[in-house]
C-alpha cells in the first residue's frame, strides 16, 4: 500500500499543489491527469524521493518512507523525461548495467528486451537508435530488475502503437504480481481499473 497524506509541493517560491491525498493498493494503478504545470512530474519526483515535499507524509504499508529513503528507493523504478541511455553502450549493456547496479544481475535482461520487442537490437550501440527505441530501452529496465512501485512520467512519449501495447502488457503483468503503478500520461494507456488523480493549476 502506497499512500500520501496532505502532500504539498513548492517550486521556487510558488505553491504548486497542497493537501493532496492518495492511496494505491497492491495491484493498483493511479493515473495523474492535469494541464501542463499542474505538478504531475513534481508529484512523481516527490514519490521517488528526488524532490522534498513542502508538507505531508508518504507512507509505504503504513510506515514513514522518509525514515528510510534508501529502502524506498530500492523498491521503486522511476522513468522520467530523460532515458538515461548511453550511446556508447549496446542496448543489452544499457539494460544490464542498471539491473546489475540494482543487484538483480543480468538474468532478466533478455526477457526485458523481448517484452519491448527490441531483442533484435541487443548488440546495436544505443547511439544509432531512434527516439522511440531509446524509450523502449529505458522502459525495459522496469522488467530487468524487480521493484514493487513503478513511477512513470509520460512513459509513452515517442512510443509507437506497438510500443504502447508492449507497455500496457508489461504494466498488466506487474499489477498481476501485486505491483503498484503511478503514471502521468495524456493518452489513454488502456489499463483496466485505474484510479484517476486530477491535478489543477495553482
Amino acid at each position, binding site marked *: 500500500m502506497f499512500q500520501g497524506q496532505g502532500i504539498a509541493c513548492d517550486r521556487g517560491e510558488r505553491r504548486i499543489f497542497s493537501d493532496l491525498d492518495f492511496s494505491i493498493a497492491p495491484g493498483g494503478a493511479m493515473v495523474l491527469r492535469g494541464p501542463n504545470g499542474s505538478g504531475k512530474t513534481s508529484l512523481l519526483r516527490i514519490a521517488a524521493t*528526488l*524532490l522534498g515535499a513542502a508538507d505531508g507524509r508518504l507512507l509505504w504499508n503504513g510506515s514513514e518512507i522518509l525514515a528510510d529513503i*534508501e529502502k524506498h528507493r530500492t523498491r*521503486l523504478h522511476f522513468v522520467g523525461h530523460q*532515458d*538515461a541511455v548511453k550511446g*556508447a553502450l549496446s542496448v543489452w549493456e544499457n539494460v544490464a548495467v*542498471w539491473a546489475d*547496479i*540494482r543487484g538483480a544481475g543480468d538474468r532478466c535482461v533478455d526477457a526485458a528486451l523481448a517484452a519491448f520487442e527490441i531483442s533484435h537490437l541487443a548488440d546495436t550501440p544505443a547511439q544509432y537508435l531512434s527516439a522511440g527505441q531509446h524509450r523502449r530501452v529505458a522502459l525495459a529496465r522496469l522488467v530487468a530488475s524487480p521493484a514493487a512501485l513503478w513511477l512513470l512520467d509520460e512513459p509513452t512519449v515517442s512510443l509507437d502503437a506497438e510500443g504502447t501495447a508492449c507497455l500496457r502488457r508489461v504494466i498488466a503483468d506487474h499489477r498481476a504480481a501485486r505491483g503498484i503503478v503511478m503514471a502521468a500520461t495524456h493518452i489513454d494507456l488502456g489499463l483496466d481499473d485505474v484510479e484517476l488523480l486530477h491535478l489543477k493549476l495553482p
Partner: protein
Amino acid sequence: MKPLISIIARDLRLAVRQGGATLLALVFFVLTVTLFPLGVGPEPAILARIAPGVLWVAALLAAMLSLDRLFQSDFEDGSLEQLVLSGLPVGGVVLAKIIAHWMTTGFPLLLAAPFLAVLLNMNGEGFTALMLTMLIGTPALSLIGAIGAALTLTVRRGGVLLSLLVLPLYIPVLIFGVSAIDAAVHGLNAKPHLLLLAALTVACLPLCPWAAAAAVKLSLD
C-alpha cells in the same frame, strides 16, 4: 559493495568506449610539460630546478580539465538520477564515480610522470618521491574536484566557475607534493611531506564524497 563495483566497471567501460576524454587529460599533461623546455630554454640546471613544480602544476591542470565529465554527462542524460535512485547511499555512488575518475585520469598521469621527469632532467634522487607523491596526491585531486564538479552541475558552461572553485583547494596538494620531491632531490628527508600529503588525502576520503553527494542531491531538486 558489489553494486559500487558495478558502477566503477560501468564508468571504466564508458571511458574505454569514449577513449577521447581519458586521452585528452593525458595529452594535455604531456603537452604542457613539454612546453616548458621550449619556453624557459634548454638549460639543464634550470629545468632540473623547476621540474617538480612544473610536473605538479601540469598534473593539477590536467586533472581539473577532466572534472567536468565526472558527473556532467550522467546528469544531462538522466543517469545520475537513476544512480541516486538505485538505493545505494549517494555518498557511495559518488565515491565509486571518483574512484573510476581517478583510474582513468590520475592513474595515467602517474604512469606518464617519470618519462616527463626525464625530459625535464630531474635529479635521479627525486623519482621515488615523484611517484609516491603522485600516487598519494592524485586521488586527492579527484576527491576535491568532485565537490566542484557536483556544485557546478546546474550552471551553464560551468567550466570556468569549476576551475575558480577547485584550483584554490588544490593548493595544499601542490605545496606538499612539490616540497616532498624537492626534499628528496636535495638529499633531505621527504617523509614528513609525504605524510602530510597522505593526511590530506585521508581527510578528503570521507569528507569530499559526503559534500559532493549533498551537492548532487541539490542539483536534482
